[in-house]
């Protein structure tokens, strides 16, 4: 479906894996009109990061919610059109809810229960914000709108 949004979340237990390359499993989710229409957890199938990119592309993943990953991987995923929410520290379910609301951003720390605790990001990490990472969801007319968009 054209309006489907597919995301992938590498996991350790039920949490977003602390590193992309050290995940135990991977959660595949498809959203349609703001609702989850497909959700499946599978064993982390890769040993090398390159396979993960192809796997994500095959599935049509538009966003990756993950823990730490190397800068070159962020570039690699970005050039393939995958938006990366890196350094997300949260339970997977809380990260999904934040994504649905259009509130998820890279480096975000979410406490169990969904309360945003803060961000790992400092001024040195500004260069990661290559893309407006909340825009994927908002472009579908979902999620909270905020900031200057109201003036445009």
């Amino acid at each position, binding site marked *: 479906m054209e309006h489907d949004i597919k995301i992938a979340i590498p996991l350790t237990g039920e949490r977003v894996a602390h590193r992309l390359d050290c995940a135990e499993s991977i959660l595949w989710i498809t959203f349609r009109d703001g609702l989850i229409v497909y959700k499946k957890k599978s064993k982390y199938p890769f040993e090398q990061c390159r396979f993960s990119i192809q796997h994500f592309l095959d599935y049509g993943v538009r966003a990756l919610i993950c823990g730490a990953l190397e*800068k070159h991987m962020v570039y690699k995923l970005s050039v393939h059109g995958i938006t990366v929410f890196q350094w997300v520290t949260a339970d997977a379910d809380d990260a999904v809810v934040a994504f649905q609301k259009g509130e998820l951003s890279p480096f975000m720390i979410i406490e169990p229960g969904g309360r945003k605790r803060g961000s790992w990001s400092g001024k040195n990490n500004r260069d990661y914000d290559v893309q407006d990472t909340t825009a994927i969801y908002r472009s579908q007319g979902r999620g909270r709108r905020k900031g200057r968009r109201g003036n445009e």
Partner: protein
Amino acid sequence: MSIKDIILDSIAEGVFTVDRDFTINYFNRRAEFITGISREKAIGCKCYDVFRVNICNTNCALKNAIKDDAKYAVNNVDIINSKGKKVPISINASVLKDDNGNILGGVETFLDQSEVSTLRKTIKAGYSSEDIISQNKQIHDMLDILPDIAESTSTVLIEGDSGTGKELIARAIHNLSGRKGRFVAVNCASLPESLIESELFGYEKGAFTDAKKNKPGRFALAKGGTLFLDEIGELPGTVQSKLLRVLQEKVYEPLGGEIPIPTDARIVSATNRNLKQRVEEKAFRQDLFYRLNVIKLLLPPLNQRKEDIPLLIEHFINKMNAITGKNIQSVSEDALELLTNYDYPGNIRELENVIEYAFVMCKERVIEPKYLSKDIITNQKTVNHNTFSEQYPRFGLIEKDQIVDALHRSYGKKSKAAELLGVNRSTLWRQMKKHHMV
């Protein structure tokens, strides 16, 4: 600040302590520097959320130390810091107890091994595709298929200007291939025509007057490995036909030898010339060209991948810091602009030399324009921002390519891209939205 804190902040190792739930309760200054996380943010968080080691799930040193009430040392592990850099480290972990012997938690000390790792890599030339630094799509498309190319035994032809990293790609192919033999590089242009045949195929004792003993050629040295033939376009005609036979029959004969010797060396060749044109000029054998050109990789010159210049500068600064023992942090914005506007006819090799020159001259922590060579200052490509913006319409729909171009030139900074396009930031945002770029 207590004396204990001052001491712990003065040492070269990162130190943090955790309670029994692995919640961080102390984080020293060096730990902040290595992880890129401030102690204010780290304290109160779980150690695996801050200290993203590749063994957290499988072989956590702290967990083992607390469980076994013992000291643990682990080498050759890495963390990914908040800047997205993989930092090789060595770890020591111990259990922390109170006066009554009750376990309070654990302490972990870790040492940044980046410099050792960089030097080791430089000496061994053990490059992989991860060492190829780029955010250029053409390069990434190539890197995606590199492991598949490495697994095959087909010949590879790498085309690209001098200094674009052809040998680095060839080494990456070899290292990814898992071939047990050596990587042997031959520069076909550097050897005189009279010697190149004996260098490649070796000779037998008595083959000519001074041949007093057998000498193995590069094909023999590359047995089970990879033979990299750089500047293949310069190969003399007589050797071309011999090489063609090796590629077809997988055997070669040393000079003066009678028995053909089988070879399993994988051939990777490279050229900075247009080999097809050389074929049309009859300077290169057509049949050999087709044999070599089974898989062709094309490396763009640096002036076509300017978005990579800041990344490469950072890489060369880290490398030069490791080699020279200096502690240069970065280049200033003015210097970066000069470095970006230069055309680099010598490509990445020239950029590396420019950084090396700046390292010799620089007495501060930041490379300023005054430390750059005169070539960089005087041979600036005239990038007139006004002229650039005049290329683009100020009203109506800006073409997607123009936006992408401007974003590339501004390294993803939308405000700067808007400035280049001569529109304000919100207009750029609106145009990006129209093109479904956001």
